[in-house]
């Protein structure tokens, strides 16, 4: 595997080989030689080596970070910004629900004929009497409300 890694380091691997190698490398628990190859290059190209621990510190810090998963843009940290991002969506659904409910309630009192919305505080027995007489005339209901 390290020979392929050496070729990858020189950008000399085919695309499908890169995929296979990275899969293999991620399964390996043992550290690969990428670090050494980079160090060798820096020395031979007279690059400043800097602190040996900086790379290690950075990698350790990344290990502690929540894993980034692409495609969903999902972040596991619970920052307030991430929570607030969901509020507009929730608000939209709530608004749609309210509008739908209102439209449904309105449609119960709307008819093709001349039925009108009656007041809600008409005595029940009065309404029942009128239903019993099976009248479709809306004036019964209007009269009932005046006779309260």
């Amino acid at each position, binding site marked *: 595997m390290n020979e392929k890694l050496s070729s990858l380091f020189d950008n000399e691997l085919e695309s499908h080989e*890169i995929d296979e190698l990275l899969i293999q490398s991620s399964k390996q628990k043992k550290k690969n030689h990428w670090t050494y*190859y980079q*160090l*060798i290059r820096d020395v031979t190209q007279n690059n400043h080596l800097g602190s*040996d621990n*900086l790379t290690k510190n950075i990698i350790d810090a990344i290990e502690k970070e929540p894993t980034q*998963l692409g495609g969903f843009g999902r972040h596991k940290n619970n920052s307030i910004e991430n929570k607030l991002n969901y509020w507009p969506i929730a608000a939209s659904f709530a608004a749609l629900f309210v509008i739908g409910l209102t439209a449904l309630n309105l449609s119960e009192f709307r008819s093709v004929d001349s039925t009108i919305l009656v007041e809600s505080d008409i005595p029940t027995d009065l309404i029942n009497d009128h239903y019993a007489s099976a009248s479709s005339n809306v004036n019964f209901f209007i009269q009932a409300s005046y006779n309260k």
Partner: protein
Amino acid sequence: MNTLKVLTTDSHVYNVKKNINVEEKLMESRPVNPERAVDQKLVEKAQKGDKKAFGMLVEKYQRRLTRLLSRMVRDQSEIEDIVQDSFIKAYRAINNFRGDSAFYTWLYRIGINTAKNYLVKLGKRPKAMNDVEIEDIENFEDAQDLRNLETPESSMMSSQIITSVNQTIESLPDELKEAISLREMDGLSYEEISDLMNCPIGTVRSRIFRAREAIAEKLKPLIETTNKRW
């Protein structure tokens, strides 16, 4: 397939040649930068949750980023903090990287912004970086400046590493020494090295690998000692 079958209203069928967008044609023929292709693969792996892949990018670009930011910040420990912050920010934003630019260009911009914010917080006026292209910054001869910022311990470790690498290369068999030198110092591709050394590309690959492994064996005790010390 560059033709379309078109059925017209008068029931005639025509084979119509598709006009290939000129830009698409140019993109097809443009050679893909191999380094950028490798970085893109590593980024894609990191975006799928592979932190090791991101670690490889850290190893690859940490020193280059440090060199870049040393143009803005003089204190060694501050530079290291900023470099570490930059990589963490880059990791958190990795899903936003779409490959429109090279990864190192994107990373360097994060580094520069991090350094600027740091300097502003300290009340220091950042150097005018806007007028300087990132590629130009990399070309500055600032290795000597960086060496002046090293601690005695890190300076000693650097010297040991440099000595070990150079001595090991000198002690390699001629064909391995030539292959690794042509690759690292002259930046030749495997194909160019195989032409020069008059051997198959597979042999070049193997020689470079064996040279690196020999040097890595010498470096291991040095690196492992440093890690244990901390």
